[in-house]
Every structure is written in structure tokens, then in C-alpha cells.
């Protein structure tokens, strides 16, 4: 199996706080990986480094063998936890924008998903609710044929019914060569779709293992293991 993401002794500090400390992580293609940890544990920092929004202080990071940059951004599809689309745009304009900049964007796929969710592409983003905006963003991000998807809290702001649809969208929209990283603390909701989990605590990696192995060895669900590891 080839490696899509390789982090070596990655460290990132903000002033006196250490967001990530000596993270070594290697992810293979074709997996759905849960990046799990409490708030402020460094999940978003790691995802931002993968996407070139932050530069690590020390250590190296390779995406399909490349440093974060123009070439890596072509193959990484990123859903931040922010609503990052200009709100004056119409949904259809946001789609054209993605189509213009990402060679792997499939317009038809995006319109199909919009249609399935009963979203009107002629609407301006500012007229949509926060949850609906998040759905639009997820549709855009999942309409790319990327090698690595980084989804930062993709289900945080939407209702449980939409959660199921979104998870389904994620599972059915990535191909076997691609890897999906889902960062969240809503573990019970996504547990069943994950192949592997990465536990991150105060900036350090505490666990990286296949879900089946954990269930077999520990005899408990990821959710209960999480509660155990991160007991306050």
C-alpha cells in the first residue's frame, strides 16, 4: 500500500503553547481515518499544516511525496471548520469557481448532490442558513476527485438527519485510491465508517490503529476508548 501522508517529528508552537509536539504519522491510501481528540488538542493545526496554511517549526510533512505547495494542493481537498465561501456568491458561482481552479472537480457530481439535497443553485450563499452553507461546502469538497480529503468537523453544525446524508456522501464519493481524514469529537456518529483512528492529545499522538484491531483487542467501541483515554 502506498503512503499518502507522512509526518516526521512534526512540531508547531504558537508563542509559548505547543500545538503539536513531535508527531510521527504515516497514512496509507484507501482509508477513512478519524482524527480524534478533545478541543484544542491540535487536530486543526495538523490539518492546516497538511494544507499549507501553517508552516511547521520543525519536522517534515509529505503529501504523496511532496512538500505542501501548489502541487500538493491540487490533490488535497480541504473542508475547513469555517464558512469560507464569499457570501455574495451564488451557489452556482461557487461551483464555477471550484471548476476553474481545480482540475479534478466534477461539476455534474456537485449539481447532482445539490439536487438530492433540494438546494437551489441560484441562491446566494448569504441567504442560506449556517448548516446549509456547510452542506454546500461539503458538496464542493467532495465533488473533487482528490487523493486526500481533509474534513475538519464536517458534521459539527448540521442536524442528525443531514449528518447521515453527509457521512453517506463521504463514503460513496471517494475512490479506493483516496484517503479521507475526518477530524471530529462526535465519535459515536462516525465510528461505523472509520477504518482507522488517530488519537491526539495535547499535541502528541497517543494512538494510531485500525478500528477492527481496537475492537478486538480492547473489546470496546472507539467511543468508550476515547472516553477512557481522554478522561478529564
Amino acid at each position: 500500500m502506498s503512503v499518502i501522508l507522512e509526518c516526521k517529528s512534526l512540531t508547531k508552537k504558537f508563542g509559548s503553547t505547543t500545538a503539536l509536539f513531535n508527531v510521527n504519522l504515516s497514512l496509507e491510501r484507501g482509508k477513512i481515518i478519524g482524527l480524534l481528540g478533545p478541543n484544542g488538542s491540535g487536530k486543526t493545526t495538523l490539518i492546516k499544516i497538511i494544507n499549507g496554511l501553517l508552516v511547521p517549526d520543525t519536522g517534515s510533512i509529505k503529501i504523496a511525496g511532496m512538500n505542501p505547495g501548489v502541487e500538493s494542493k491540487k490533490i488535497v481537498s480541504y473542508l475547513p471548520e469555517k464558512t469560507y465561501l464569499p457570501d455574495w456568491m451564488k451557489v452556482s458561482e461557487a461551483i464555477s469557481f471550484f471548476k476553474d481552479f481545480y482540475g479534478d472537480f466534477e461539476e455534474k457530481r456537485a449539481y447532482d448532490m445539490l439536487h438530492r439535497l433540494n438546494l437551489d443553485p441560484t441562491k446566494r450563499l448569504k441567504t442560506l442558513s449556517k448548516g446549509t452553507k456547510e452542506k454546500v461546502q461539503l458538496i464542493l469538497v467532495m465533488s473533487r476527485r482528490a487523493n486526500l480529503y481533509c474534513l475538519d468537523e464536517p458534521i459539527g453544525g448540521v442536524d442528525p438527519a443531514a449528518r447521515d446524508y453527509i457521512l453517506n456522501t463521504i463514503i460513496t464519493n471517494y475512490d479506493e485510491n483516496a484517503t479521507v481524514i475526518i477530524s471530529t469529537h462526535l465519535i459515536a456518529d462516525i465510528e461505523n465508517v472509520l477504518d482507522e483512528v488517530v488519537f491526539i492529545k495535547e499535541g502528541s499522538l497517543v494512538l494510531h490503529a485500525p478500528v477492527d484491531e481496537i475492537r478486538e483487542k480492547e473489546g470496546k467501541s472507539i467511543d468508550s476508548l476515547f472516553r477512557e483515554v481522554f478522561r478529564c
Partner: protein
Amino acid sequence: MLAKLTKHELYATGRIFLPLYSIMLLLSLINRGFSSIGELSSPFKTLKGFMVAAYVISIVATLVITFVIIILRFYKNLMSDEGYLMFTLPVKPSQLINAKLIVSFLWNILSIFVVATSLFIILGTSKNLEMFRGLLDLAVTGLKSTFGSSYPILIAEYIIMIFVCTIYQILMIYVSIAIGHLLNEHKVIGSFAAYIAINTIIQMLVSIIVLIWTNLELSIFTYTPYYGTTETITGNNVNYSVSIVQAITKQIIPFSIIFSVLCCVAFYLVTNYIFKKKLNLN
């Protein structure tokens, strides 16, 4: 990719600027119409007064808003949440700056042309045009008599200067926003502080350079290009004015241009460095 970024930037800003410019041109047409009618009955007089006021406001708005939009656009599109979209596009940070700079420059120059056009619409009666032509002739004669054959060079230098200064202003705003953004909190205040600091440093640099320069070779007069004050020259000494003329076209303006270009390069490189290595989106 730069072409695509520029296209999107034009689209995103054009939706504000084009209506603004259209309104101004429309108001100038209306006012021209009113002034050609002559005597008006009183309700129309009120309307006319209202239209004149609206026109003046639209001119001020065009010039002010052009700059405000340039600032807001850079801040909002790159430094706020939208930055997550822009900085994860498969483009270099320098291309993001270039696209913004090109489009801001275009709107700046265009806003001058639009205001000029609107003034032409309002004031362009045959009598006024005659007078304008007369003034232009007078100006050219004046320039010729003072600067002799080198007056086209002076005009060319001035035009270059306007372009360079426009870019200088835009890049100084960009670099200030980028520096302010390095802070974890109070980014906007930080940007203002950075702007004032950069301005002060440059003023000081210019003063020092001018001081050294005037001491070195030009003890006959003092001229500081950035403050725009010339010491009055008394008497009609020909040699005197020749040396000043030469100083203006051969030294002062070229120096100002070179100095501004160097500042622009510094602003650009710092902004690009921050975007590449120190990006700190909230």
C-alpha cells in the same frame, strides 16, 4: 492561474465598482441636462439642487470607495475566513498578491478616468472647452519656457510617478495588513500601527537622504519631494532656474521614482514572505 485569479478578482470587485461608476456618470448626465434647460420652475429647482448634491457625493464616494474597497477586499478575501479558500487553491501566494495588485491598480486608474469623463460631461460646453484648450496651451507654453526641450520628459516622468505612487500606496496597505495579521489578537489595530510605523520610517529615511543630498551638492536650494515644498526662488537669475530645472527632471523625480520602486519591492517581498511562511489565519 494568474489569469483566472485576476478574472475572479475583477468579477468580485466589478460588481461594486461598475454600478458605482454608472451612477456617477448617470448623475452627471442628469445634471448636464438640468443646466442646459435654463430657467426652472421651483419644484424642479429643488430637484436640481438635490441632483447637484448627489453628484458631488457620488464623486467623493467613487474616489474614497475605490480605496476602501481595495483595503477591504484584501483583508476580507485573504485574511478572514475566505483566506481558507484562497490559500488552499493550487496557486502561489505571489499570484494571489499579483491578482489583487493588478485589479486594484486598474480600478484606481479607471476611477480617475471616470471622474474626468463625468466632469467633461458636466462642464463640456463649447465655451468651457475653448477655455480649457486655452489653459492647456498656456500650461504648455509655461512648461516650454521653464523646461525648454526637456518638458516632454518631465510629463513622462510625472505619469510614471503617478503609476508608481498608486502601486506604492496599494502595496503599503497590503504589507501593513499582512504585518498586522501576524498578531494573534487585535489584527486590525496592528495593521493600522504597521501602516503608521512604515510611513514614519519612510519619511525619516527621505528626510535623511534629502539632508545628505542637499549638503552634498545642492546648497543653492532645498527641495523635498515628499513634502512638496520648494523654497521660493527670488530674482530672475537664469543659471539659478536652469540648475533647478535640471535638478527636477534629472535628479528629484527620477530619485523619487527609484526610491518608491525600491519601497514597492520591499513591501511586496515582505507580504509574500508572510504569506508563505507566517500565515496565521484565525
